[in-house]
């Protein structure tokens, strides 16, 4: 590992005061970004891609997703909540979008707009992009920020394959901002707040890849909003006396299912594939790197199982969410077909299509491989030899007792000067038997990794 500049903002924060150093997070991290030191989990920033696996695995809630304070919306006179269709998918079908919108307005927002209106602009542009850029195959969606980061650090070869177009979120936010300005509002009066299903989207807003700055003012976690809205609804809101705000722009069916698995791939030309869950994605990309003839045109890759329906900040079971999204899409599709239904189709965002199209491109996404042992090849070569020598003495059990997630990661940590071989419990036992290490010394080593508390005699 090479430790250098910090590239990423991470929304995932590890609370040392709550962490019990159980290493559950370390075992599930798909990019080996976690170690245990002094009885606490330690995150290596440049390896973390914000997928949120650790958040799910933590048994004590020591990993939190840092969000903006809801009260900060009142710094703006126009307070726009940008909500993903997955938010609506959290609620049982008895809860209407009108109800949800009304509660959001009650919380202080002045406008509510669904992210996936952006799909109306993006869908055709993305399809064109794929048909035009035939020299690069497969083209990979940049929808999921955790995947974009994964590709930058683990599959740098594939960065040229990333589609350089904005996400529906950025499009929807840019549209709403422009619309409010055109209606005579000043830019500084407008606050655009995204209700996020995951940490990766927060990281993408706070340090966008391929863009200078994000059009989003702040980010609020979806579980927080869900709980507020659902509590209000359960308590009978909006009641007779409450103000009711119908949502004006109905979402088209393709927008509704966009954040679900196959949401993008179903609409893209040629041979397409949709893969969800980060370990599945890693397995697939490993294989893809070996192959010469790539006749796949488009890859939709998502870090979460069942895509955004499985985002770490969702509250409802992901399979129910997907079912609800599909049903809503079906209802919407029926309406789209119905000539008698005066459907505002595809909504006012289309009036801004030309403006949005001009601002659709993002800059080239840079690879930043984290696999290299050293910038200098001779040094890297020496380190690699050392890694293999060390590995010969390790048991390949991947037990994690050393504080590193696997034996090969420990070997790399040792070579980079971040760990010592006698952190391995197998090595310790051998040394003890040979008389090269006392049991007191090995106890000290273990305490250094796991903290003193774990070795206290509790009787």
């Amino acid at each position, binding site marked *: 590992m090479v430790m250098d500049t910090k590239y990423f903002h991470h929304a995932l924060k590890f609370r040392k005061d709550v962490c019990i150093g159980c290493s559950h997070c370390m075992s599930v991290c798909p990019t080996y970004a976690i170690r245990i030191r002094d009885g606490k989990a330690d995150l290596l920033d440049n390896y973390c891609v914000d997928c949120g696996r650790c958040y799910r695995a933590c048994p004590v809630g020591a990993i939190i997703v840092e969000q903006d304070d809801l009260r900060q919306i009142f710094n703006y006179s126009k307070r726009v909540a940008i909500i993903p269709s997955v938010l609506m998918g959290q609620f049982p079908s008895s809860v209407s979008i009108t109800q949800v919108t009304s509660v959001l307005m009650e919380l202080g927002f002045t406008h509510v707009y669904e992210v996936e209106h952006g799909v109306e602009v993006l869908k055709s542009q993305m399809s064109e992009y794929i048909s035009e850029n035939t020299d690069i195959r497969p083209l990979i969606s940049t929808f999921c920020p955790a995947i974009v980061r994964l590709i930058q650090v683990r599959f*740098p*070869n594939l960065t040229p394959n990333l589609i350089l177009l904005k996400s529906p979120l950025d499009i929807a936010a840019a549209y709403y901002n422009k619309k409010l300005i055109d209606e005579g509002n000043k830019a500084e009066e407008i606050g655009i707040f995204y209700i996020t299903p995951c940490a990766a989207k927060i990281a993408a807003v706070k340090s966008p890849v391929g863009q200078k700055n994000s059009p989003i003012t702040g980010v609020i976690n979806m579980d927080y909003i869900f709980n507020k809205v659902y509590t209000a609804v359960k308590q009978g809101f909006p009641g007779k006396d409450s103000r009711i705000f119908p949502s004006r722009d109905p979402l088209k069916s393709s927008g509704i299912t966009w954040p679900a698995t196959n949401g993008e791939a179903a609409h893209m030309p040629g041979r397409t594939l949709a893969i969800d869950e980060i370990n599945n994605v890693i397995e697939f990309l*490993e*294989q893809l*790197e*070996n*192959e*010469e*003839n790539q006749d796949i045109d488009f890859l939709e890759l998502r870090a979460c199982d069942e895509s955004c329906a499985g985002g770490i900040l969702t509250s409802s079971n992901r399979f129910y969410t997907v079912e609800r999204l599909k049903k809503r899409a079906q209802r919407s599709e029926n309406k789209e077909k119905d000539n008698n239904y005066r459907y505002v189709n595809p909504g006012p965002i289309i009036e801004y299509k030309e403006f949005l199209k001009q601002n659709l491109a993002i800059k080239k996404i840079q*690879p930043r*491989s984290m*696999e*290299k*042992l*050293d*910038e200098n*090849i*001779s040094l*890297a*070569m020496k*380190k*690699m*030899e050392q*890694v*293999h020598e060390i590995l010969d003495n390790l048991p390949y059990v991947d037990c994690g007792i050393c504080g590193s997630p696997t034996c090969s990661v420990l070997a790399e940590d040792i070579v980079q000067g971040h760990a010592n071989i006698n952190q391995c419990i197998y090595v310790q036992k051998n040394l003890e038997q040979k008389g090269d290490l006392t049991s007191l010394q090995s106890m000290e080593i273990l305490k250094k990794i796991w903290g003193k508390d774990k070795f206290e005699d509790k009787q």
Partner: protein
Amino acid sequence: MHFEYQIEGGNFTRAGFASSEIKKMMKQLNVDMGVIKRTVVSTYEAEVNVVAHAFSGTIYVDLDEEKIVIQLQDQGPGIPDIDQAMKEGFSTASSAVREMGFGAGMGLPNIKRNADDFQITSEVNKGTNVKITMFFNK
């Protein structure tokens, strides 16, 4: 550094193991991405050829600061006419192999195109040797 990997004829499930190991090491060495890509693609094709056409084989990998040399030695039927085998689209693969997505007859030509140096020798009823050399600062 020297590494060896065994290849089992007919076992497509494990084909690609050596290529992935080689890829990992080259990434650790910070080798140019384009070189890694060409190395991995050619090694994978050569690996698949042993799986598809031979009984068993060994991959010998030698790695230093300047280059990687990958030799695949197999025990198998050998290739009677190498010039013909090198032609794009030429294949003796069975329909079963084709159904698995292999056997388009592009393997050897692709290896030749991607490798910095490529050598192939073969003896009928004994086996085939393929040697791929890749230079890092290219």
